[in-house]
């Protein structure tokens, strides 16, 4: 088969680009450490959340130096706890579940975005480096009040944060 040199050139260039696309994704997954949200969180009886250690009382818990876990219940049409408060320069793992229908859990304007499925625990870890306020919203239609379903994530400056402060308000 007779292939023109130009054609060989752009076939090779196309292959190089595909390899480039794949390598950037590999770079993100390895060097940057980006993960997909998966089923690691395990399952749970969605009709008995009140009997579960984590979700009976939705809260934020400190589990290490600068490591926090937030046990979040997404239900029609609120997120508990609200707001979620943590200090800056911390690592926060969300455990989110739902007692009723499928909800979304999206920290608005960021890549932290997952589905919340009754019977499953959605686990996602993020790093919070800067103080600030984020909205949290439900992005899966969950009923008549879906459009009002929102929460807040407040990242306090490190020196202004007190553990347990989230119950004061």
């Amino acid at each position, binding site marked *: 088969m*007779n292939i023109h040199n130009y054609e060989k050139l752009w076939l090779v*260039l196309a292959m190089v680009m595909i390899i480039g*696309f794949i390598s950037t994704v590999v770079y993100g997954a390895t060097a940057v450490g980006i993960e997909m949200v998966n089923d690691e969180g395990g399952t749970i009886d969605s009709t008995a959340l009140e009997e579960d250690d984590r979700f009976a009382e939705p809260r934020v818990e400190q589990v290490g130096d600068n490591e926090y876990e937030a046990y979040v219940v997404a239900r029609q049409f609120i997120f508990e706890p609200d707001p979620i408060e943590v200090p800056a320069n911390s690592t926060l793992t969300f455990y989110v579940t739902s007692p009723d229908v499928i909800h979304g859990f999206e920290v608005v304007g960021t*890549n*932290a975005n997952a589905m919340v499925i009754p019977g499953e625990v959605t686990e996602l870890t993020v790093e919070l480096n800067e103080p600030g306020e984020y909205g949290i919203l439900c992005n899966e239609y969950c009923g008549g009040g879906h459009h009002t379903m929102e929460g807040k994530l407040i990242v306090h400056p490190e020196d202004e944060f007190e553990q347990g402060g989230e119950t004061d308000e």
Partner: protein
Amino acid sequence: MSGENTVREIGHDEFDPNGTLALILIYFGILTVMWVFMYFVEFLGNDLTVLA
């Protein structure tokens, strides 16, 4: 294809589609720039990112 109006006949390798090559290079350039922007600026720059 050689009729009486044919001015010049050239073989397969003698015709160089320079315009096509230029278009493809421009197109590939745009794709590369857009990919870099989308992945490194829009995606990796969009903290909070799921890290575990």
